[in-house]
């Protein structure tokens, strides 16, 4: 076992970049290559622009609801870029930025939240499980998927994203336990963004850290600075390569409210938010790359332009009204619609005629 993947996490989160962008000299983690760092930067800028665009579209009534991941880009992008092509991602409702980073079409990413259907994309296309709403349930899907890959002799890891709140659900425990017993190649990335809607960590868990759960299942555990994309990338990559299960807790913060429907002023102060804005994950990589001379003004401008273009595409897609076929309600309940559903479909068709 490599030193950073012991059963117990380190007392302090592992990191590679300080909040001012200066590198941590004695980190046990390997700094990613320059091209990876540049890619982390590019994807975070595009991801954030996507996120602010989605938030804006929600205000304009184009989305039913939007859970922003602003402030969590280091987790969303760092973890996904650490995956290999054959690996699978099992996201939640908050992980749209992870999805677009994985290559899922942004409009298809937003289908669920726009309200047209429960899911927009084909999970097999980019190897991304359905966005999961019932908390923690996706942890078990990831374990089953990864174990199946092992049984089939395939070298596939599963990365499952969950929130701090979701770690309190029984399913998280069962998943870690199955993964531990089966030695399934699953990376559990807990994005500890401080809150489960309004509930802070102090009311959620009394452990030294959430990563301290791992040892109870024989699962190696890592505590990482979740606003440090380089560090998140490094620990996820190591976990994927290790082949067995790993529990990673990334300390981060949700800058926006839980969703557009939430009023965060009821449970947290603007000072607290300001302190976290000061630890911005994008700024941090930007500062480091700029100091290293890797992020030239030209590249920065090009990335910004790409982000704008991406946002324009999202706007265009979401501002187009689509027909939603009511008859599709009956089509995929079973592989072949039952006689019973065909009867009901006929009644609806008659109504609509």
């Amino acid at each position, binding site marked *: 076992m490599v030193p950073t993947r012991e059963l117990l996490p380190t007392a302090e989160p592992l990191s590679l970049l300080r909040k001012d962008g200066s590198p941590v000299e004695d980190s046990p983690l390997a700094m990613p290559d320059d091209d990876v760092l540049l890619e982390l930067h590019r994807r975070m800028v595009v991801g954030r622009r996507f996120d602010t665009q989605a938030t804006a579209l929600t205000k304009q009534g184009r989305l039913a609801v939007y859970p922003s991941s602003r402030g969590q880009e280091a987790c969303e992008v760092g973890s996904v870029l650490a995956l290999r092509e054959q690996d699978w991602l099992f996201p939640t409702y908050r992980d749209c930025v992870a999805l677009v980073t994985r290559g899922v079409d942004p409009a298809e990413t937003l289908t669920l939240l726009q309200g047209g259907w429960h899911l927009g994309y084909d999970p097999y296309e980019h190897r991304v499980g359905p966005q999961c709403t019932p908390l923690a349930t996706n942890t078990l899907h990831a374990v089953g998927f990864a174990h199946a890959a092992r049984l089939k002799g395939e070298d596939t890891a599963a990365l499952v994203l969950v929130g701090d709140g979701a770690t309190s659900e029984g399913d998280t425990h069962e998943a870690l336990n199955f993964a531990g017993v089966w030695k399934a190649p699953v990376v559990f990335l807990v994005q500890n963004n401080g809150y489960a809607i309004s*509930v802070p960590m102090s009311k959620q868990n009394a452990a030294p850290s959430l990563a301290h759960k791992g040892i109870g299942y024989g699962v190696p555990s890592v505590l990482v600075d979740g606003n440090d994309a380089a560090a998140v990338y490094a620990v996820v990559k190591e976990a994927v390569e290790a082949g067995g299960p790993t529990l990673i807790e990334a300390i981060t913060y949700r800058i926006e409210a839980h969703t557009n429907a939430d009023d965060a002023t009821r449970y947290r102060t603007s000072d607290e938010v300001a302190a976290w804005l000061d630890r911005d994950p994008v700024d941090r990589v930007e500062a480091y790359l700029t100091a290293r001379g890797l992020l030239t003004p030209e590249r920065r401008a090009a990335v910004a332009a790409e982000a704008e273009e991406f946002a324009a595409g999202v706007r265009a897609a979401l501002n187009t009204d689509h027909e939603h076929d*009511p008859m599709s309600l009956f089509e995929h309940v079973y592989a072949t619609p039952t006689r019973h559903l065909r009867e009901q479909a006929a009644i609806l068709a008659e109504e609509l005629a």
Partner: protein
Amino acid sequence: MTAVSMAGALNRALADALAEDPTVLVFGEDVGALGGVFRVTDGLEARFGSTRVFDTPLAESGIVGTAIGMAMNGLRPVVEMQFDAFAYPAFEQITSHLAKLRNRTRGRVSLPVVIRVPYGGGIGGVEHHCDSSEAYYTHTPGLTVVTPGTPDDAYRLLRDAIASPDPVIFMEPKRRYWSKGEVTSDPIPMNRALIRRPGKDVTLIAYGPMVATALETAEAATEEGWDVEVVDLRSLAPFDDETVCASVRRTGRAVVVHEASGFGGYGAEVAARVTERCFHHLHAPVLRVTGWDIPYPPPKLEEHHLPNVDRILDAIARLQWDDEVVEVRGA
């Protein structure tokens, strides 16, 4: 008295219960500082303190399981499930313990626990936020299942539910949270149905979110010349056979309406039961107007799923008015 929203009435019921009975506790996910995602518990933690009203860790089985333990120790927990489908993780605690402990202990252990479940659709909610799960609970002996259709009933039923010595699944029609009405204090027992509108020709049986729809339908039906009696069940378990059967025997026709999928839904019990007991008074089979037998649709399509005035009128029209054989739909 001024009109209050259903959410406001529920809030008032919780506040009054907390104020009157020191053993009442309110807890769940986000019910504290936030006041619940629907604000039903707004202000309660501030007013009653965080030992009476508090946020729990995010775990529904944990919430119900600890509520059972607290009730065994003399408290009266009122817990919130954030949305219908998120009560499913608590299913074992509800079904194997909450419903059965009194019976298991020959009445020595009482579990006066209320589980508040916001249910149903019509709010543009994404998947898992609009299930109508009442049939899972009504089929479980030992549970009392009630659901208000008006702010008035929201207040009264919740007070009664909290006062009940038995566990109550309190289903809140979330799309009616913002509908307004007066809160009176007529003492109508929790287990009785109410005739919301008298009528001679047909009994329309509804509950929760569909009560308003049923009343609208009754209005519209006058234009067709049908005088519709609307029964609001209020209590799904136990079912008020007396009130409902008396109405059906009077009218000779009945339609039952709910949002949940029809197959094996609560309406099946209503139809089967009313038919068993009123067969010779019926001119036509009891018909059901329900959601289709599909998972709850996404927001853009929910209007095609939910029972509405037209569908209910259509069912009424098929109730054998001209002595011709009722049209059979399907095999």
